[in-house]
């Protein structure tokens, strides 16, 4: 039986494709985007995280760890991440759910059964299941089995991908995929390498391959997604360049270009994983900035009605002070 490693399921997901969906977050990603909003999804290995607000301080976890990776310091639980193997015994033992294991191994059939529980909502909304992450294409056997199982059950499928994978993987997944959510973050290869750790050449080649596949098969549907990161992707030149590229190469094959505003909700997630984040102090965009990006994108040559900007913007009224 094929198994895969996932983070969690997001039911009633309304942001990852049409209708009401369940999004499956895969663990592991080939990119290292500086702004990554899901740092727990980068490593393919299981990881543990500790929530101070939930911890009873009972130290049950210390005894449960077979490798002695856990100790209690001044600021709470210390995890020796170099030695932690992600076995999850501490999370199982913790009575309060203060330790979570990120990345659990699950069988395809077990996951399918969970995903089918919301079939009624997929049907009333024109929704379905989205494979996201992390990067689903890093687990091709699992992703293929999952997509195939969903299609056999009559459920619509979407693949949310960074675009960096082998063609063989695309060949295996695309026949069972109704919608591809394809990321284009930066069009300049050097900038792409600087911010994500890899050049975008392979990604754009895969996009071209995908476009060719769509031309031949008249499916799957395609949405392009661009994160709007202040100082990285959210500048006029980049948006114009991507828009121009889409207009030139994807005309008639693309049904949406989504601009996703920078989000800081993951700030504490970095801390919990013992990581630092370059964007920890970056404020959310203002509504005016988001609207500006949307206007630039709409003027870039692509059909303006395909452009959609989403995401949280900065509150502009003063914060209430704590009393």
């Amino acid at each position, binding site marked *: 039986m094929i198994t895969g490693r996932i983070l969690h*399921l*997001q*039911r*009633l997901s*309304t*942001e990852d494709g049409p*209708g*009401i969906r369940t999004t499956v977050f895969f663990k592991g990603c080939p990119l290292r985007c500086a702004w990554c*909003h*899901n740092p727990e999804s980068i490593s393919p290995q299981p990881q543990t995280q500790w*929530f101070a*607000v*939930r911890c*009873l301080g*009972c130290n*049950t976890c210390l005894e449960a760890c077979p490798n002695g990776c856990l100790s209690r310091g001044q600021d709470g639980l210390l995890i020796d991440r170099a030695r932690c193997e992600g076995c999850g015994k501490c999370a199982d033992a913790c*009575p*309060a*759910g203060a330790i979570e294991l990120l990345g659990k191994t699950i069988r395809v059939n077990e996951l399918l059964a969970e995903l089918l*529980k*919301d079939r*009624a*909502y997929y*049907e*009333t*909304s*024109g*929704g379905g299941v989205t494979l996201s992450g992390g990067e689903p294409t890093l687990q091709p056997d699992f992703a293929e089995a999952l997509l195939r199982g969903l299609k056999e059950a009559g459920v619509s499928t979407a693949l949310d991908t960074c675009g960096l994978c082998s063609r063989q993987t695309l060949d295996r997944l695309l026949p069972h995929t109704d919608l591809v959510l394809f990321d284009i973050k930066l069009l300049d290869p050097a900038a792409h390498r600087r911010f994500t750790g890899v050049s975008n050449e392979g990604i754009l080649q895969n996009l071209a391959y995908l476009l060719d596949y769509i031309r031949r098969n008249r499916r799957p549907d395609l949405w392009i997604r661009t*994160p709007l990161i202040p100082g990285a992707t959210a500048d006029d030149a980049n948006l114009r360049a991507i828009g121009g590229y889409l207009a030139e190469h994807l005309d008639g094959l693309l049904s949406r270009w989504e601009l*996703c*505003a920078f*989000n*800081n*909700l*993951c*700030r*504490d*997630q970095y801390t919990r994983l013992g990581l630092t984040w370059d964007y920890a102090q970056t404020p*959310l965009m203002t*509504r005016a900035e988001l609207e500006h990006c949307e206007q630039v994108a709409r003027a870039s040559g692509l059909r303006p009605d395909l452009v959609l900007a*989403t*995401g*949280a*913007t*900065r*509150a*502009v*009224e*003063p*914060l*209430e*002070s*704590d009393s």
Partner: protein
Amino acid sequence: MTTCTVEKPRYAVKTPYNLSPRIQWLRDYYFQGVQRAWNNEYTSWTTGAPWDFQYNELSFYIVPETYAFLQTFRSAFRQTARRVALHPDFWKWSLPERRAWFNREVMVNYLPKEILPGDLLAGARFNVQTSCCLNRQEARRRDQQIYGPDGARAAMLWFHNHGFGNAGATSGHLIPDYARVLREGWKSIHAELEQRYQALSPAEKRGKKGAQLRAMMTAATLPRDLAAAYAQECARLAERETAPLRRAELRQMADNLTRVPWEPAQTFWEAVQSLWLTHMLVMADENYPGPGDSFGRLDQYLYPYWQKSIQDGMDPEFGKEILKCFWIHCNTAYDGMIRTGGNQGITAGYGQLFTLSGMGPGGQDMSNDLTYVLLDVIDEMSPILEPKPNVRLHRNSPDKLLDRVVEMIASSQGSPFLLNFDERSMAGMLLEAKKAGVEPLIHENNVHDYAPVGCLENTMVGNDRSGTVDANLNLLKAVELALTGGYDLVPFTDPMTGKTDKPLRWGEETGDPTRFETWEQFWQAYAAQTRHIVRRIVELYEKSEAVRARFHPTPYVSCLVRGCAEKGLDITEGGAELNFVTIEAVTFATTVDSLLAVKYLVYDEKVCTMAELIQALKDNWVGHEILQARALHKAPKYGRDDDAADEMARRVMELWTEETWKYKTRSTNRQFRPGMLSWNYWVADSFILPASPDGRPRGKFLSNALCPSNGADINGPTANVNSVGKALGGKAEDGRGDWQDYFNLLPNGGSHTMTFNPSLLRDPEHRAKFKAFLRGYIENGGTALQINMIDADILRDAQKHPENYRHLLVRVTGYNAYFTTIGRELQNEIIARESHQMR
């Protein structure tokens, strides 16, 4: 603090709009509360007999907050009562005849008739405490049955103090046959009574049946006589009125009142006038503005009059103006105790529920022009408490209706109405028909005519009293009794006397649970205790039901409920065609989760022994925090779409509902039926019931109605909905449910409240998704849904009490986080963001 430009608020508080100067004035005037020159506060009236009293405390046995004041209320109304000059034969009449005459006398000849400036409807004073009209002997017998050592009051207090719940024969909670009054007029009701009376034998005429029909005939003339008095007042005001338009309105009102409600209504204005006057007298008849006196399918039975008046040239805006006056009148119910309660005297919701849309014959949708007009009126008038709207949805509900519903939810921080779901509801009503053997009265071809009363309790219309909040049972008590073999876990200490109960076994002797070797043995003990607590509440209820049946007739209400005239029985005696008493179970999820925790902790995972668990509960978990954490966070819970946990929920549901169907009241032959409303008891009773195995300490809220325990639904709204549907019985795999493929073990229905993040409704695309969610709810969910939106207040509360909001997700595009696990600064930023709307 920094100063920034302020954008338009993201979630502005809903305000009324499109109000004419007339309605604006009436609305503003209403909200002046105690400052008003006119109000509808209680007036109290006596026969003058020294034993006389007005206040019937039985109606308040389901309101534990009032227990300390029962005697005070009785005395206060007695002392302020004004004397009514009695008919010379008054004391020779039967009790129902006395009541009917006395009420008519007060309403027609004693209370002033007033019309507020600009008002288009007559009928203002209806909050009355009239004499119970008992003679000396009746009063003595009645008081014995209430105040004696075995009396209703002592039994009720004992039951409540020991955490079982509460019960009492309560007024209201029905949908009278208003449609008949509009269609035929009171004239026809009176004629039918007369005819039935004349058909009696001389002996019957002299007996109880004759007396009841005479009383109802007297009651049937009350609306005629009161309308005549108001017609006179309108004519008088018209004479003095100088503004020509208003003069014409007053003349028309006088004209309307000379016809309705005695004659059939001919216009929309007459229909609403007839409805209001008839309804306000229902409120008056039970000496408590009857909670839950509901209108039923307003958009259906008012529609012919709307159509006709529109055809005859009525401006639709004027039609809405009439309805808005009706809205204001409904709210004056709250004037009852205007001086004692804060907040305009609002002490509780009255639940004058009306129903819109829904299924008709053959599964067709019944929405019409008036449905949308009424939705506009709700939107333009809200926020306002009464009347309470309920929108019925089903598989064939049109997109137009759902679009309007979702739009109204989006603009008002939560739904301004309750949603009812036809397929699931109707499956429950058909189960009820089978269980009670009333298939001729509820069947596949008429069940679509059902409507909810009060909050959400499903009943049939015009012939049904289902006593929908009369008995409120804490299912959790059975878990407690199973853990002790029939004793209170913690003995009750009277807060007044400081005396602690001796340990006595109240429950079944189910043995020492520390000797149980299997989960199944514990389940059997729980089942035995469940059977016990159901029997106990039935016995408690009987005491007040018997008193009401004998001493508190309501002949006016009886005229409006089919069955009473035919049987010659008052509705309080079981005269209605459909007679039920609903046991509303409270603490459902807490009970299910407690059983799941016992199974998980003691039997499956052997985390602790039964003795350790019982000790932890006796200690209110103090000193057992690790075990408590395991109970809270490791044991399975209902509400997560976990099939094994939800199967436990269904098993609990099946057990207590099956037990409920076994009983009828002895005094009135009313069949008990199951429901889950749980009003506010889940808050107050949490301080009475001791710690429970699900990890809850005493004082932490119990679960609300059908909802999963607070914070347990960690898999999101769809999982929550799926669990609720499964607990009600789910769907038949072979498609052969009680209605189509649906099952519903709760004919009364169950309350389900869900909270959503406002970002789900931020643009047309997301509103379409929410609409689809509601269609999904029709497939998988329960009978009724109340929608709230997460707002800044909830988030602030989560900052203060993170333990209550462990699983509160803050969802934003592409990412979401548990609110309580993110830093304070970020939390504040999100709160500030939630206080604005995106567009």
